[in-house]
């Protein structure tokens, strides 16, 4: 097994409204194909940690390696390119672009990547949507879909470029129990059958317990690794 993500001594402080250290020397590794849950009380710094390792937030101390490449210190443009290719996001609020169809939402990151022709992008997007049982809604405006449907489209979008790591910030946080179950099964299946590495922040202990590994945080520190 190879390490796809390695966080070394990550620290982060906010200075507004007053100085406050959110993360204190956080270090951990994630293996390829692992499904990792990050849990902890509200305000302990889970989201903050996720934004660091996803390269969206660059104001921190410590180092992050992905696929053995050091991403700390890359320029904003290099990071954008890196995210495009290696990271897929799923958020609590589905965050689809409302003016675009479900299909187009899924296609955009692939078109941005520029690795495939437009028709190939479309085929790939269809394939992902089909896998999530969403292909019949492909041409529907994304704002006209239900919450659970939107979240499945968001998962398809996260997967379109076959990312190294898929990251979720409470991906089931805004869904009812049926949809939570559904999304969890999808993620689990992704991990099992396709070897997709997943890191997900969650509040849902049931959800967390079904994943490969739990990282528990408290006041900006990792207090427990659990397999």
């Amino acid at each position, binding site marked *: 097994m190879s390490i796809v993500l390695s966080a070394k001594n990550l620290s982060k402080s906010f200075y507004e409204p007053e100085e406050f250290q959110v993360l204190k020397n956080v270090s951990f590794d994630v293996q390829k194909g692992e499904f990792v849950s990050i849990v902890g009380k509200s305000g302990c710094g889970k989201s903050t940690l996720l934004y660091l390792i996803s390269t969206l937030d660059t104001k921190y101390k410590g180092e992050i390696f992905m696929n053995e490449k050091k991403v700390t210190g890359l320029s904003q443009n290099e990071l*954008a390119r890196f*995210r*495009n*290719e290696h*990271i897929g*996001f799923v*958020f609590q609020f589905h*965050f689809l672009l409302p003016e675009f169809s479900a299909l187009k939402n899924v296609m955009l990151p692939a078109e*941005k990547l520029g690795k495939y022709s437009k028709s190939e992008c479309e085929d790939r997007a269809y394939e992902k949507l089909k896998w999530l049982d969403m292909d019949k809604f492909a041409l529907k405006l994304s704002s006209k879909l239900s919450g659970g449907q939107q979240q499945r489209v968001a998962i398809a979008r996260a997967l379109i470029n076959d990312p190294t790591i898929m990251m979720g910030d409470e991906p089931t946080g805004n869904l009812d129990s049926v949809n939570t179950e559904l999304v969890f099964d999808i993620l689990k299946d992704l991990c099992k059958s396709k070897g997709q590495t997943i890191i997900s922040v969650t509040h849902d202990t049931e959800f967390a317990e079904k994943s490969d590994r739990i990282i528990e945080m408290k006041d900006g520190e990792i207090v427990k690794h659990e397999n």
Partner: protein
Amino acid sequence: MLSSVNFEIAKTHLLAKPRQTLIAMLGVTFGIGMYILMISFMQGFNEFLEDTLLSSTPDVRIYNDIKTDFSHSILDEISDTAKVLNVIHHPKPKDITPNLKSSARIIEDLKRDERVLAVSPQLATQVFYVSGLVQINGTLSGVNILEEAQLTGLQPKMKTGKIENLLTIDNGILMGHGLANKLNVHVGDMISLATPKGTAMRFRIVGTFQFGIGSLDNIKSYVNLSKVQQLVGKDNQYVTDIGIKLKNYDNATDVAKEFSDRYGYKADDWKTTNASAMVSILIRNVMTFVVSFTLLVVAGFGIYNIMSMTIQNKLKDIAILKAEGFSSGDIRQIFLTESVTIGVFGALSGLVLGFILSSGVYNLPFPKNDFISITHFPVVFHLKHYAFGMGFGIITTFIAGLMPSIKAGKIDPVAILRG
């Protein structure tokens, strides 16, 4: 380079809110439309005026300017000014003749100059037009009519009769249309002319002209040069003015200065002769640009507003695009494309609007009047105005969109995604 994904996103944004897009576009349309209307009309009027002035004034006019500078006396040259102070009360000019000496040589020389297209000597004098008991003060120009016609474009300005009549009828006279009306005379009638020195002569009216400038049409007449020389009792070399037409009238100022230096007489170019009209042309140009510029700046603010609003409403979308891997540059490009697209289509429809409006003005009949001889409003349709309007519209929207777009590019996705 504009990437096709970014363009597609921009297009989708614009089409998703058609009414807002249309309103932003209409601001530009209106601005450019008004610019086209104003510039076409103002420029048309300027060109008409310039044309009228040019057709009635030679490009360069050489004449003998009577000197009234008495600061220097010939007495000073024969007396020792260190000891003596010469004071002369009420100096007056002596009886100088205002003619150009050795005019024949100057004319010969001018005709050889390769910048010169035509030369017309003339003898101008004050006269009284006498018809019955009516006496009207005016001017009389003695010319070689064919040469003069080359110079001023008299031919197309003829209202009745032909200029060639002057060649066949020895005592013929071409009279300003307004003057003929005042004297109530027509082609074929006889008219008496008297000089201030008391000599008089009778002429037969063979034509009337109308330049469209009251100060000419109401006072001026043309007769053959020899007739005026006869009337004022001078020899056949006696001329007061030499009018010159140049191949390129834009050079007139430089050429006039050179001729003045070369021949020792005063030489005015057409701009100097028509200085006050040139000022009004300049003022109209400045006004046109100020008003058009204001309209476009207002349209620019409209776009700035709408783009800022759009971006404010799309913070989430911008954050998600950045998370997906779109860079700050991409985001900037998307919103800049939106405002420039608004600019391009707004400007295009502005050109159409401007064209329609100025065609409308062009077809309006001009109020009939004795001084300006046109039937409809003078409007020009110059491609360069349309090109400039288009360019200016695009640049304005580019600048208006630039600031909001840069701001959009700088948005921190984390702050937004956190919620």
